[in-house]
């Protein structure tokens, strides 16, 4: 085996999730057997519980456009898309030297993230499961 190119491009969680869906991976583990590798099922199961599950190509493109004014590094934009922080504390850990670079501007960045990228699906609570059963 020979490595031709170690880093041939970065993928957002949304892109990996879309790719796995196009491969026929589903939430049902029994439905996956045979056609799909176990690694694909496990990664799908993780990504489906993240913000990537409700994202669209259009919302990500719009976020990339609107976030230009904040002069963020590519890695920071990727992390914001994948994590979709909903408040300034969650955003703080993603932006390097946040206080010096963003200052009060972090609130505006949070507004852009929350306004453009859809929230992740709420996880069903135990009470809701019992009510359905």
């Amino acid at each position, binding site marked *: 085996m020979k*490595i031709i190119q*170690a880093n*041939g491009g970065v993928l957002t969680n949304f892109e990996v999730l879309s*790719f796995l869906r196009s*491969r026929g991976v589903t939430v049902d583990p029994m439905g996956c057997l045979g056609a799909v*590798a176990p690694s694909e099922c496990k*990664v799908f199961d993780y990504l489906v519980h*993240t913000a990537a599950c409700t994202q669209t190509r259009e919302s990500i493109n719009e976020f990339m456009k609107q976030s230009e004014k904040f002069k963020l590094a590519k890695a920071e934009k990727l992390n914001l898309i994948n*994590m979709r922080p909903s408040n300034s504390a969650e955003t703080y*850990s993603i932006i390097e030297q946040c206080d010096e670079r963003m200052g009060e501007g972090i609130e505006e960045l949070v507004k852009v993230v929350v306004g453009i990228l859809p929230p992740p699906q709420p996880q069903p609570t135990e009470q809701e499961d019992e009510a359905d059963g």
Partner: protein
Amino acid sequence: MFCLSVIQHDLRYRPTCLASLFIRLLEGSLNVISNLGLCVSVYDIQSVEGGFIFPGDGASTYKVVFRLVMFRPFVGEVLIGKLEASSESGLKVSLGFFNDIHIPRHLLQQPCTLGKDGVWTWDYSGSLLSLDIDEQIRFRVSNIKYPPIPVRQEEDAKPFAPMEITGDIYGDGLGLVSWWEE
């Protein structure tokens, strides 16, 4: 946390079904590739050459160039996983598809103390926040290493992990997800 890597591999293959070529390429030892990360899936096949049949062999050998989707987070990336175990050395976190994530005690929120039940508790200005098992935890990747395969392992040594991620939860927004929710 994912990227594409371009790989060339000699594949000995009986061409009965092209659809299974994807699975075939992932079989065998293509799980963790040193310095590249954890293989998730074959993204696409860029070229297939050859089809030579070597003497004494019943199948053809193809030179296949393909792109793999690799799990390889960058240093500084923030991820969310599940807190699986807690001990004196620190925390063990899992993503489901990858479990070798360790947050050493000196990279926890400070000050943190270890309880008798093995659970760490963060003293946040007087509020005691415990790092409970099975909770969602947000951590930052501080290092990734690919240890060489040991020639010999002690009987009670922990299982060999070909890829190990060290994380930290030292800073605003890090630690249990529930701590920072509004």
